[in-house]
C-alpha cells in the first residue's frame, strides 16, 4: 500500500510508519521514500501534527484497542479489519481500472494497427459518408496527391477528386461510389485521366459500401489503384502479339504450327499459298488429309523426327504440291513444355524451286561453256592477275601433255620457251587490252617445242574489273612447216624467174658465139690447104669444141627455162625402170668418154611412182651427170644405180666412187648456185632444180658422202596407188 502510493489519489500523504521490527521491508521503504516519522513507538505516531488517519495493520486486537483509547478525537482509526476491507475494495477497483485501461489500450493498439494497415495499403483509399463527403483518406492517397487530411475532410468527394483527376464521373452517372451506395454492393470501373503533368494514367476503382450491423450503408470506401503500368504492359503485349501475328503473317517463309497429332494449329499466308489451299481448309487438319500422300508422308516424317528428338531438324525435299513440283528448304523445331517434352512443332519452309532451277541452269551453262572450251581446237588457258594458271582446256591438256590438275596454280610462263617474252606480252595486254597473233613457242611436258600463234586478252569480271588474262594459242607447227615449204618454193620460183632472165641473157652471147664460130668455120672451109698448118689444125680442133660448148649452154638454158616454166600440178605416173632406159643411153656416151662404168640393178616388179615421166628423167639426168662430172678427173670410176621399193616409197640409189662431197658443201648442196665446178663450168642449178621437182611430188632427195669415199644420192618417191577400176588417184601420202 505504501509502496504503491495508492493513497496519493486521495490526496493523503503518509506522515509516519511504526513497526516493532525496525528492519521490516515496509519500514525500510518508508525511510527510503522520506517518510518523516519512522518508529517502533506508536505514541510517536500519535503525536504527529495534522494527523488525520491511522491505519492499523498489525492485526493485533490489543494494539487496536490501545489506539482506540489513545487517539486524539479528530484522528480517525481504521483497524486491520477495516484496512483489509479498504484494501480489497481498493484492489478490486484497481483491477477494474487496470482492466479498463488494458482494454482501452488493446483497443487503441488495435485501432493503430488497423490505421497502419489502412495507411500502408498501396492503393489510394477514400472513405466517404453517405453524403459523399470525405470522412477519411489513407496515407497513400494523401501522399500521392500531396494533401493533408484536414484539407480534405468534410469536403465533397468530387471537390477533392476533380483537381486531381479531371472530371468526376458523377456527372456521367458512372460514379462507382454512387453505384455502390445505391446497389449496396461493390462496383468497379477503370478510369482514364491525365495528371497535372499531362501524362496518361489508368486507374482501377473499386467502391464498396460500408455496412453496419443492421445492413445499413453508412459510408463508402473507394479504393483507387493505378493500373497504368499494367495497362501499358497489356497494351504492349497486345501490340507485340499483333506484331508477331503480322510478322508471321507477312513472312515470306511459310510458317506454321502443328500439334502432336500433326494438325495445323496456325498457318500464315505464305503457307496457304505454298499448299495452294485456303486457311480454313488447312487449320485443324493433318497433312495426310489435305496433301497428296507422298508429300504428306515426307512432311509427317519430318514432324515426327522433331517430336521424337525434341530437337530442331532441317532438310531439303522435292514435293509434288498442287499441280507442280516444288523444292522446299525446311526447318522444323519443337515447342517444349516445362519437362522438356515437345508439345508442338513449328515449321519454316522456303520455296527454293527457282533457286534450284537457277542452280541447274548455272550448272548447265557452266558445262556448256566448258564444252565450248574443251571442244575448241585451240589451246585456251586463263590466268589470274599474278600469271598463275586458273583454267586449262582439253586441247591444252592434250597438246602440252599436262593435266589441268597438274598445271593449275602454276605460273603460265612455265609453259613458254621464252618466259621473258611472255612477261612482255602480259604487260602489253595489261596496257593495250589485247595482243593478237603473236608467234611464240610453247613447251610440252617433255620439253618439245610447239610453235604457236598466241592471242591474249584481258579477262574481266561482270563489274569490268580485270581479274586475269585469257591466252588462246593455235598450234602452227603445220603452218610453219608449210610456210617453210612455201618460202622454199618461192625461193625456187624466184630462182626460176631469175633463171628465165639468165637464160635469155645467155642466149644472146651464145647466138653471137655461134655466128662467129660459124663464120670462122665457113672461112676455114674455104681456105686453101696452103694455110699454115698448126693454125689450121688448131682452128679445126677448137672450133668444133666451141660449138660443142655452145650446145651445152643451150641445153642448160633450155633446162633452166623448162624449170622456170609453170608446170601443171596434175599428178602423173612414171615407171622408174622405163625412165632409166630413156636416160642411160643419153649419158652412156659421156660416161664412156670419161671411162666410167654404169651398173644398174634391175628391180623387178617395181611399182610405179607419182611423178611426171619427163621430170623424173630430168632428175636422173642431173644426178648422173653430176656423178660423171665429179669423176671426170679420175682415170676411171663406177656408178651404181639401185632402185628398190620400201613400204610406200620407191628409193632410187645412185652411188659413185668419186671424190665425195665435203661436209659444208653437202649441207647446202640443194641450194641454188652451189657448185663445186670451176668458175665458168656449170651454174650450180642442177641439184636445186631436182630438189624442187622431187619436193613437188612429195618426195625427197638425200645425200650421203664423205670426202674420198664417193657420194650416194637417194631419190625417194611415193608409190603410185593403182586405183581400183574407175576410181581416180587418191590423195598424197606424207
Amino acid at each position: 500500500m505504501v509502496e504503491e502510493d495508492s493513497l496519493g489519489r486521495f490526496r493523503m500523504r503518509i506522515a509516519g510508519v511504526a513497526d516493532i521490527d525496525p528492519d521490516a521491508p515496509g519500514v525500510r521503504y518508508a525511510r527510503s521514500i522520506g517518510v518523516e516519522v519512522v518508529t517502533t513507538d506508536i505514541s510517536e505516531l500519535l503525536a504527529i501534527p495534522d494527523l488525520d488517519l491511522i491505519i492499523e495493520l498489525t492485526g493485533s486486537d490489543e494494539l487496536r484497542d490501545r489506539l482506540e483509547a489513545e487517539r486524539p478525537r479528530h484522528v480517525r482509526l481504521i483497524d486491520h479489519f477495516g484496512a483489509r476491507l479498504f484494501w480489497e475494495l481498493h484492489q478490486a477497483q484497481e483491477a477494474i481500472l487496470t482492466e479498463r485501461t488494458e482494454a482501452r489500450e488493446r483497443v487503441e493498439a488495435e485501432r493503430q494497427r488497423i490505421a497502419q494497415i489502412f495507411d500502408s495499403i498501396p492503393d489510394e483509399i477514400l472513405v466517404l459518408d453517405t453524403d459523399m463527403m470525405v470522412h477519411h483518406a489513407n496515407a497513400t492517397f494523401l501522399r500521392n496527391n500531396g494533401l493533408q487530411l484536414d484539407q480534405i475532410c468534410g469536403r465533397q468527394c468530387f471537390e477533392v477528386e476533380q483537381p486531381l483527376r479531371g472530371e468526376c464521373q458523377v456527372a456521367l452517372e458512372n460514379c462507382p461510389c454512387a453505384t455502390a451506395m445505391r446497389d449496396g454492393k461493390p462496383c468497379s470501373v477503370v478510369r482514364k485521366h491525365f495528371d497535372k503533368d499531362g501524362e496518361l494514367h489508368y486507374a482501377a476503382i473499386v467502391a464498396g459500401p460500408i455496412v453496419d450491423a443492421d445492413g445499413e450503408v453508412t459510408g463508402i470506401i473507394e479504393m483507387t489503384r493505378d493500373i497504368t503500368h499494367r495497362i501499358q504492359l497489356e497494351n504492349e503485349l497486345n501490340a507485340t502479339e499483333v506484331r508477331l501475328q503480322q510478322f508471321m503473317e507477312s513472312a515470306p517463309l511459310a510458317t506454321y504450327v502443328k500439334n502432336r497429332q500433326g494438325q495445323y494449329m496456325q498457318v500464315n499466308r505464305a503457307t496457304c499459298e505454298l499448299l495452294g489451299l485456303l486457311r480454313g481448309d488447312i487449320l485443324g487438319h493433318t497433312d495426310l488429309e489435305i496433301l497428296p500422300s507422298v508429300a504428306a508422308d515426307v512432311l509427317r516424317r519430318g514432324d515426327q523426327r522433331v517430336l521424337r528428338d525434341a530437337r530442331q531438324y532441317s532438310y531439303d525435299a522435292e514435293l509434288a504440291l498442287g499441280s507442280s513440283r516444288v523444292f522446299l528448304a525446311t526447318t522444323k523445331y519443337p515447342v517444349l513444355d516445362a519437362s522438356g517434352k515437345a508439345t508442338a512443332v513449328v515449321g519454316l519452309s522456303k520455296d527454293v524451286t527457282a533457286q534450284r532451277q537457277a542452280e541447274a541452269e548455272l550448272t548447265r551453262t557452266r558445262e556448256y561453256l566448258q564444252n565450248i572450251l574443251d571442244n575448241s581446237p585451240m589451246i585456251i588457258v586463263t590466268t589470274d592477275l599474278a600469271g598463275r594458271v586458273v583454267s586449262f582446256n582439253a586441247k591444252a591438256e592434250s597438246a602440252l601433255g599436262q593435266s589441268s590438275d597438274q598445271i593449275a596454280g602454276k605460273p603460265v610462263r612455265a609453259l613458254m620457251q621464252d618466259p621473258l617474252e611472255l612477261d612482255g606480252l602480259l604487260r602489253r595486254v595489261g596496257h593495250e587490252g589485247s595482243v593478237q597473233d603473236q608467234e611464240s613457242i610453247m613447251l610440252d611436258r617433255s620439253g618439245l617445242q610447239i610453235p604457236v600463234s598466241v592471242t591474249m586478252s584481258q579477262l574481266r569480271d561482270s563489274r569490268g574489273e580485270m581479274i586475269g588474262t585469257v591466252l588462246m594459242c593455235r598450234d602452227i607447227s603445220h603452218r610453219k612447216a608449210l610456210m617453210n615449204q612455201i618460202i622454199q618454193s618461192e625461193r625456187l620460183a624466184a630462182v626460176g624467174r631469175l633463171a628465165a632472165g639468165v637464160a635469155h641473157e645467155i642466149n644472146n652471147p651464145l647466138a653471137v658465139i655461134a655466128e662467129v664460130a660459124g663464120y670462122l668455120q665457113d672461112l676455114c672451109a674455104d681456105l686453101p690447104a696452103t694455110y699454115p698448118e698448126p693454125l689450121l689444125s688448131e682452128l679445126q680442133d677448137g672450133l668444133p669444141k666451141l660449138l660443142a660448148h655452145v650446145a651445152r649452154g643451150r641445153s642448160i638454158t633450155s633446162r633452166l627455162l623448162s624449170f622456170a616454166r609453170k608446170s601443171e600440178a596434175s599428178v602423173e605416173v612414171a615407171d622408174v625402170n622405163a625412165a632409166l632406159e630413156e636416160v642411160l643411153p643419153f649419158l652412156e656416151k659421156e660416161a664412156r668418154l670419161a671411162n666410167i662404168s654404169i651398173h644398174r640393178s634391175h628391180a623387178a616388179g617395181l611399182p610405179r611412182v607419182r611423178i611426171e615421166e619427163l621430170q623424173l628423167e630430168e632428175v636422173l639426168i642431173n644426178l648422173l651427170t653430176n656423178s660423171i662430172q665429179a669423176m671426170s678427173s679420175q682415170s676411171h670410176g663406177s656408178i651404181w644405180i639401185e632402185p628398190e621399193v620400201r613400204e610406200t616409197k620407191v628409193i632410187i640409189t645412185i652411188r659413185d666412187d668419186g671424190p665425195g662431197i665435203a661436209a659444208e658443201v653437202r649441207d647446202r648442196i640443194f641450194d641454188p648456185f652451189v657448185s663445186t665446178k670451176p668458175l665458168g663450168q656449170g651454174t650450180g642449178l642442177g641439184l636445186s632444180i631436182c630438189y624442187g621437182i622431187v619436193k613437188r611430188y612429195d618426195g625427197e632427195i638425200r645425200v650421203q658422202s664423205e670426202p674420198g669415199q664417193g657420194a650416194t644420192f637417194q631419190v625417194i618417191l611415193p608409190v603410185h596407188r593403182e586405183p581400183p577400176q574407175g576410181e581416180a588417184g587418191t590423195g598424197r601420202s606424207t
Partner: protein
Amino acid sequence: MGIRVLLVDDEKDLTAYLAKRLAARGMEVETASDGASALQAVQRSIPDVVVLDMLMPGMDGIQTLGALHERHPDLPVIILSGHGAEEQAARGARLGAIDYLHKPCDLQQLVDAITGAVTAGSTPASSDRRRH
C-alpha cells in the same frame, strides 16, 4: 641467088657476122638494129625477106612487124625469138610472120627458111618449132 635480106636485131655483132655468112652464100644483106631504122631501110629499098628479132628494146618485134605489114603486106618476115617467148612467136605468126626460129639458130636452118620464104611463102620449119 641474090636474095635481098634485111636483118633486124639489136645485137650488132650478131647481125654483122650473120650478114657476112649469108653474103658468103650469095645473099645481099642489109642490117638494122631497131624497128625504126628497119622501117627506114625498107622505105629506101624493099628487101625480099626480113629476118626480125622479136626481143628488141624500144619498138619491139611485134610493133615492127605490124608496121612492116601495114605498108608491105606481102613482105615475108621470118621472126627470131628466144626460148620462153612462144607467145610472142605465136602472135607474130598470127600477125603474118611466115616462119619463126629460135635463137641461137642454125645457119642452114635460117638459109632454108629464107629461101623457102622467097620461093613459096610456106615454111618447111614448122616441124622444128620447138628445137632449142
